[in-house]
């Protein structure tokens, strides 16, 4: 259960998030959509502990984690797949996965955790000894979501996982965490610029604009009420 209340995030003089309150639906996908600069990434970074919180609070499973360090939050079952396709490029696929498994909150044995990843993404098994930097964008993203989920986190933050990927790969990635959500009951917070896609797979949605929530509601409603068209004016 992830609750954010009146969150304020600022980098020096810039206020990236200006008082956001949201609740991630437990065991389901919650979408955060908005144009670039709306504050989606800053919001996720504040939740995972990478960005300093100037005001408000973040509650994870009833515990206030506002001042807890990022690595501690990871240990508590919070995982963050950052924007920008970030992975340890000089380490191999297997080394990346092992690091994440080693330092996260482990539930399974290494062998079965690795097996699960390889079953989901057979290409990663093929490339297990390839340095991550040498793989294609899509393969890297597969690795990134695998790294983020190898410890079966209770809460998963995804920052624009579809960015720059071919539609067919986007489909695979989306199928992956949708299933994780269903199978493991993971709470997913999905930030996307591509609103249509994110709203399609999510239960609830928040529209961010310049650091504030301007619309929220069940995703189906947001889509049905022609909000996509209205959204385009928020973007365009």
């Amino acid at each position, binding site marked *: 259960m992830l609750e954010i209340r009146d969150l304020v995030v600022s980098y*020096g*003089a*810039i*206020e990236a998030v200006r008082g956001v309150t949201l609740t991630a639906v437990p065991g389901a996908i919650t979408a955060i959509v908005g*144009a*670039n*600069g709306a504050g989606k990434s800053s919001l996720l970074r504040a939740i995972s502990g990478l960005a300093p919180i100037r005001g408000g609070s973040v509650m994870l499973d009833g515990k206030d984690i506002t001042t807890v360090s990022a690595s501690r939050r990871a240990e508590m079952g919070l995982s963050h797949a950052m924007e920008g396709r970030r992975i340890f490029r000089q380490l191999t696929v297997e080394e990346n996965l092992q690091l994440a498994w080693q330092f996260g909150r482990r539930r399974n044995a290494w062998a079965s955790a690795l097996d699960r990843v390889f079953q989901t993404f057979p290409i990663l098994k093929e490339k297990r000894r390839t340095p991550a930097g040498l793989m*294609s*964008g899509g393969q890297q993203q597969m690795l990134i979501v695998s790294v983020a989920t190898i410890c079966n986190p209770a809460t998963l933050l995804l920052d*624009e996982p*579809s*960015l*720059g990927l071919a*539609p*067919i790969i*986007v*489909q695979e990635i*989306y199928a992956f965490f949708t299933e994780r959500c269903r199978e493991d009951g993971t709470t997913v917070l999905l930030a*996307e*610029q*591509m*609103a*249509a*896609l*994110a709203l*399609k797979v999510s239960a609830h949605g928040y529209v961010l604009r310049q650091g504030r929530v301007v619309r929220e509601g069940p995703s189906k409603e947001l*889509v049905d009420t022609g909000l*996509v068209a209205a*959204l*385009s*004016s928020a*973007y*365009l």
Partner: protein
Amino acid sequence: MIIAFRTVLTRLITHPVFILAAIAALFFGSAFLSGGTVAILGFLMLNILLAQSMNLLTGIAGQISLGHAGFYGMGAYASGILMKTVGLPFVVTVPAAALIGALTGYLLSFPAGRVREFYLAMMTLAFGLIFREVVREWDDLTGGAVGLSGVPSTTLRTLHVFGYTLDGLDYFRVILIVTVIVMWLVHNFIQSRYGRAFYAIHASEVAAGCLGIPRAGTKQLAYTLAAGMAGLAGGLYAHMIGYLGPESFDLARSIAVLVTTVVGGLGSMAGQIMSAVVFTFLPEKLQVFAEYQFIVYGLILAFTLILLPRGLAGLLLLPPRFIKPSSLRHAVAAEVAIRPVETDKDAALVVQGVTMRFGGLTAVDDVSLELHPGRITALIGPNGSGKSTLVNVISGIYTPAAGSVRFFGETITGLPDHRIAASGLLRTFQDPRLVPRFTVRENLLLGAHRRYKSSALAATLGLPSAAREEAQFLGTVEAVTRMAGISDVLDQPLESLPYGYRRLVEVGRALLAEPRAILLDEPAAGLSEAEMTLLARMIRAMKEAGLMVLLIEHHMDFVAELVDDVVVLDSGRVIYHGDIGGMRQSPEVIAAYLGTAETEHA
């Protein structure tokens, strides 16, 4: 209360009457002091010179020097050897000492601008060490560890200048005058575009590059000047005692200078004087201090920058400024903020088939667009569409894999960023690269840097030509601030103002350079409604003056009212080019931003 105290104290010690009175007091009053005290005062002057030299290098230009005693020693031994062994007169050897010091600094600083700061820091540490070792070993020339004695000096009454024998009092007066003159020159230098350029390099190298300030060259100049000053001090030192030994120029000496500068306050000339007084008299008066000197100095270095980063000057005085008050008083009122751009048939920015790759990723794919005078074009696209990369290619930060960029008919593809800036094509950055400690006025004035014609010499000597030029640009600064609506905060440090002001100042600064084309990278991000109105006003004024404007933005409301046409990028390619109304209807654009719910393919 504290500000009032600082203001009063600063006004007092910078007042010409006070300064002249102090100099006169020292000059004439020294006749009534004992020989020993006069000698200490002489050392004080030398320490002031050394502190000022390091202040210029480290405090203003931000370059570290951990072996400063090496420059001091170069000058000392140079003057001593030239006079004793070669027999050259005082008026030749001391300037020679300064030149040799300067040459050493110049050679040492060759890696500057190519490597990270700390490499150079290590190198200066190594230099200090090497200097002492070489002096110790090269006994034929320097007397080795035993030292060089018999240097003509005032102590032994063997120093003759133009047939007149100088005694301790005369020499002190000579040193005093030299110190005063050097400080006056340095003061002029700092309060000119050169001082501002030095500090800009310190505060933000990338911004400095875009302003036409050469990074490596400026750093080298800083080392050269500072080493020259230290060499001069060394030359004067040599003839005070008549004996030079390598222990006078070892690590302890370098540390002492560094401590003096850090405690005085990096960047403040007045602070250096205060600190030099403390550290010249303290070791003399407190024997205990001498014993624990190294430990005290070490503790000071370890914690001062953390606890008291601006030193004594930060505590007691107002922050130093980089514009002469006299120039401010004579600012020439300017009528227009932006001079109209002359156009010819080639007046356009033509981007043709530009492709940019990073490893396996194609960030910009065969993009073409044109900018024309008096037109505002928006460049938009979702995150990662290649907008910033394209702007980086146009402004010279990247060289594209394919395609060309032509500006006023000339091909500028692949030219370095400062060359492109010099040709009149300027850009702003997503996070404004300004100098936080500078006032709004000083930041804006930086924009005119490459338009100055007066030389460093003219500025240092305070010649009327330099003063006139400064006054002229200050006038333009005032006109731009009026247009931007920020006149009331002109003399406040930028770091004390809300974020929106930085944007306005950055755009205003670009205007000071008289650009012919301007690329604005997300200027409206983070601005309040009021600030956006001011920004829009500035951009419209640019259009009226005939500039070519490229506006990268996400903020559609802001863009809609301003632009003449729109170019939309997605995944590095142009997917729409036309007016804004059409863009809102274009299915490709909507799909690019919002994605489609259908991702399945048959």
